[in-house]
């Protein structure tokens, strides 16, 4: 009708350059790593890096939903320690009844998932039903889970029975078609997460909630339930991550999972999700997790500097990775 209206045919969805920022940073790191050490791209090293990214990665996928919906969860690291502790104690206690074998492992996995979901439910309930600021709830539960773990372990370490552990170990170290289980699980979680974020009503509702709670409410989105669901989902994923973690180290203590929360949140944000909520990118989170793991790996490959400065180099690279993203944006 009026010729001044916006053109009907829009340029096709171009993936904006700045969205590619984290990917560029990741590629830069890979090139750097490969040029520093010829073993960097060896199957062994790649498997190591991917498998160890899996814990934080699985958690960070859940964190993406929480942050997209405008929340935050500081308790995931200590929740992981707690879930691992409970899982180990439960498995040790069940050995007399179940013996060492697949049933024991499955029972342990169930316990871990249930504990994770329950922990997430408690956080979610306090945040969405009682209405306490997420930062405070999860800061509180961070202290609570950490100290419960220490208490369960009597100040020391909770260890899985050695034989059970040997039986369980392949869940971390073996895999399918030469791909380690943690990598497979992480990949599945990432793909499902990306689908859930982009292709399901739940993902949209998370974004709407984070963008403008009032609007979401007026649009008949069940705000409380969606918010709660993000925390429960995250709790469940913490449980899943723990299932992968326990066969690796076979133990849990008060220092298990320290700072995982910061790492997970950093991965989410490096990946391009906005801390204040409203839009989330699961694939970005995966890239963010890989960036963080690679930094550590490369520092070990190179041993160029004093180990005291590792933290500084890490910090600089994290900032640079995000600068790359911003540069892309302003050029856009």
């Amino acid at each position, binding site marked *: 009708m009026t010729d001044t209206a916006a053109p009907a045919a829009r340029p096709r969805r171009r993936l904006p350059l700045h969205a590619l920022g984290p990917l560029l940073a990741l590629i830069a790191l890979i090139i750097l790593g490969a040029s520093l050490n010829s073993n960097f791209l060896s199957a062994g090293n790649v498997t190591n890096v991917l498998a160890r990214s899996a814990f934080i990665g699985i958690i960070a996928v859940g964190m993406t939903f929480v942050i997209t919906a405008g929340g935050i969860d500081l308790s995931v690291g200590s929740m992981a320690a707690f879930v691992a502790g409970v899982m180990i104690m439960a498995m040790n206690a069940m050995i007399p009844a179940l013996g060492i074998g697949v049933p024991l492992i499955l029972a342990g996995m169930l316990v871990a998932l249930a504990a994770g979901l329950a922990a997430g439910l408690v956080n979610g309930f306090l945040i969405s039903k009682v209405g306490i600021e997420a930062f405070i709830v999860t800061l509180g539960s961070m202290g609570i889970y950490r100290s419960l773990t220490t208490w369960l372990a009597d*100040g020391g370490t909770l260890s899985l029975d050695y034989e059970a552990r040997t039986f369980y170990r392949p869940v971390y170290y073996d895999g399918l078609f030469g791909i380690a289980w943690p990598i497979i699980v992480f990949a599945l979680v990432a793909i499902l997460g990306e689908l859930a974020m982009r292709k399901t009503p739940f993902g949209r509702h998370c974004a709407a909630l984070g963008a403008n709670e009032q609007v979401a409410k007026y649009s008949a989105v069940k705000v409380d339930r969606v918010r709660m669901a993000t925390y429960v989902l995250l709790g469940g994923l913490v449980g899943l991550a723990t299932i992968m973690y326990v066969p690796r180290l*076979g133990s849990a203590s008060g220092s298990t999972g320290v700072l995982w929360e910061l790492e997970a949140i950093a991965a989410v944000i490096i990946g391009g999700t906005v801390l204040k909520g409203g839009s989330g990118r699961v694939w970005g989170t995966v890239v963010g997790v890989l960036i963080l793991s690679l930094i550590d790996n490369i520092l070990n490959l190179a041993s160029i500097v004093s180990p005291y400065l590792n933290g500084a180099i890490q910090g600089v690279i994290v900032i640079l990775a995000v600068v790359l993203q911003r540069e892309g944006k302003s050029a856009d």
Partner: protein
Amino acid sequence: QDTKVIGVAIPSATHGFMGGLNYHAQAAIERLEATYPSLDFVLATAGDAGKMVNDIEDMVATRNISALVVLPFESEPLTAPVQAVKDAGIWVTVVDRGLSVEGIEDLYVAGDNTGFGRVAGEYFAEALKEGDNIVVLRGIPTTLDNERVDAFTAAIDGTGINVLDMQHGNWNRDDAFNVMQDFLSKYDDIDAVWAADDDMATGALEAISQAGRDGEMWVVGGAGMKQIIKRMMDGDPMLPVNVTYPPAQIATAIELTALGQVSPTPVSGRFIIGSQRITPENAEQFYFPDSPF
């Protein structure tokens, strides 16, 4: 001639003792690299057990190490990964904290945690009498801290010494300062303090002198931090003794491992560095002004 790579994995310098350990590790590596051109070292420091396992995996996968020197962040979680290293035919030296399965390592170099608690406890038993009151500042809740405290408790058992309170000072000066301040508010009569670590002793001493109760009690720390040793040498009455737990044990371990790599010298076995009592008389021997610890 082929260069051999030795991997060294230790916890990062998060408190005084570990700082000293980091210092000695780096010093030993520098020294050895200069002495043996055919040796290369990879040093990795970790803030938690998981990261330490990652570091070890990286050393094996990308640096082709032929020997590993490891101070396990925690015993249990490191046992299987170190076992895997051993199974790959790599020499393993374990320092300080034993693995939870015996017989994995080729060489074990350690301080004596039980001894560390016991020697301190024995001094308390000698110097105090029945009915005297003490307070204890514990470290970060870990197995290691448990071992020390258990040994200490066992040593004073039956002496009639009253343990008024134990709280975690986390091997940290500030935390120890706070906890000690509160102990001083809470208890009017304290005769001695076991601070279990010289960092915590430093904090505790400060809190005591702030409260003006210097004359009332003495403090026993541990691990022989240079500032504390200096004060002992100067005859500080509040610091009657100290107990060694040398961070330099890492240097011993690295040197022995290196020796084993470059020569046929047999170096496998166990090497326990006992915890000794430091007194003002022998303090001079334990004073290393150049160490950061």
